[in-house]
């Protein structure tokens, strides 16, 4: 029970910046939900510490291959390392936070 405390201490001290890229498909239901959910989570847990780029894959189809995109919506956490990929509409907040490596501190 000691380690999480020290970890969260370190994180809060460093206050890492998050670089996020969200790939969506136009205005599909999943896409809209994913954008809304993600924005909500970020504003709640890492306010002011993130940059979010939203990309419509339909507009840049070549990206699908270069970014190894299969399932959509896809969120790629570029920074901080390690890089992580999250798929889905971001409705499962606990998993999104785990994927982003954000500790809520309440656990």
């Amino acid at each position, binding site marked *: 029970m000691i380690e999480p405390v020290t970890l969260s201490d370190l994180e809060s001290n460093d206050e890492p910046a998050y670089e996020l890229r969200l790939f969506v498909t136009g205005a599909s239901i999943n896409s809209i939900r*994913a954008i809304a959910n993600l924005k909500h989570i970020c504003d709640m847990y890492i306010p002011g510490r993130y940059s979010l780029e939203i990309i419509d*894959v339909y507009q840049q*189809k070549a990206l*699908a*291959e270069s970014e190894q995109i299969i*399932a959509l919506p896809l969120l790629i956490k570029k920074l901080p390392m390690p890089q992580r990929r999250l798929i*889905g509409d971001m409705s*499962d907040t606990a998993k999104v936070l785990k994927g982003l490596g954000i500790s809520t501190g309440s656990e």
Partner: protein
Amino acid sequence: MSLKSSTKADFPSGSLPKSPTGITGLDEITAGGLPSGRPTLICGGAGCGKTLFSIEFIAHGALLYGEPGVFMSFEEKAEELAMNVISLGYDLDQLQRDKLIKMDYVRIDRSEIEETGEYDLDGLFIRLGYAIDSIGAKRVVLDTVENLFSGLLDQSILRAELRRLFDWLKEKKVTAIITGEKGEGMLTRNGLEEYISDCVILLDHRIANQISTRLLRIVKYRGTVHGTNEYPFLIDGTGISVLPITSLTLAHDVTTDRVSSGIPSMDKMLEGKGFFRGSSILVSGTAGTGKTSIAASFIHEACNQKKRAIYFAFEESPLQIIRNMRSIGIDLQQHVDNGLLEFQASRPSLTGLEMHLLSIHKMVEMFDPQVVTFDPITNLITVGSVSEVKSMLMRLIDFLQSRQITVMFTALSLNTIINEQTDEGVSSLVDAWVLVREIESNGERNRGLYIMKSRGMKHSNQVREFVITDEGLSLVDVYLGPEGVLTGSARESQQLLEKTGVVLHQNAVNRKDREIERKRLVLESKIASLKEEFESVQDELNKAYVEEELRKEVIEKNREQMTRNRHNEQ
């Protein structure tokens, strides 16, 4: 393998449009190829050739049929795939640069992905759609899409999305191959077969007696007639080739042209002309009866007539055969030098039967001979069961007959008792069967040659003695005496005896002639002496007669004188 379009005569061509695979033999059994604009499932265990099959489909499409293709790999990286098939002569990198194919490697790493709710596979659709549109692809391969199941957790989403994917592929009107790993009790691990119902091809890889055989079966093919058997197929230096039984209909062209057996006296037994061209001949016999010599003599004769020939040897090396045949006055080396004769020697156990069949196919297609010989086929039994060998030989004979190639097989009978059912059951397949049998008598073995059958001609039913001399082979009429059939030295002594008889007879005749001559002389001298006697008797008789005349004259004279005298005196 040759890439020429295969004959489609075996099946009636349906209205269903098909995309040829360019894989030798497969287009024959599917009557044209895979269903155009529909997905086909290729399934099978690990290492059965699914990926190679798919690559050939794409590469042939791009190179031969003007149909660009997209290869989406979920297993191997594009570079790895390109490396794997470069030995088969497919330069995938160049094809990619020429915009004829598009390779795309899809990497899914479970550990990197977190699922956070509802999602779909639109990314895959966009990616594939983009790839198809960028080169105007008509063919698509997904190898193997099942890997998605291990990369993504939500099976229900995945299943729904796959169904959508296959429907979407149909809408795109691309001919697709989906590969799938064989599952337990199912064709594929995740039951892909329930989504793809148009065409399912199963590949299998079986090992029997340490020799592997690859088999291909069309499980289903909607809307068309197709071969339903398991067809052996091979993967070698030129890719996949499927070997269907080439003539299911037994409709070869036939000819009445004849080919000499190379032994004039054997031709004489076959209406004086020899075997039919394009027929199959079996020469069987026990060890050391001269089967190879008959085969070599047959080849020799064909080459002398400027025909091309291949000698498939399963027992001896080419040099050994050439040396051995020289001892009976058959020089095969000159034909090799002239490029008329080609030797192909290999141990039967080198490869499986199907591989043998393939190499034979290839050799024949490359060299285009009119005459081939297999010496001996019996050795093939070491690599397959009797029924397998028979099936292979049947296909071989069909293949050779369709090309009008005359073939001579030699077969070793293991026992001296002739069993008409042995010889790998080949005897019913062949057109002519020559049997060389040992006849043992008087402490020596001689060879008796029979023509057991020869379809479509009157052939001699007699046993001939088969003699191997320094000048080649010949057949001698066996001597039929009061003690039965005589061969070898018994025959020779009988012939000698007959010769002596002739001399003695001649002698006797001469003596009689001389006696007659003597008798004639004796008689003639007798006749002469009798003649002399007659003349002397005649002389005697003449003398008496003359004397009588004279006397009569004298008496007359005297009487007249006396009469005159008497008158004068008076």
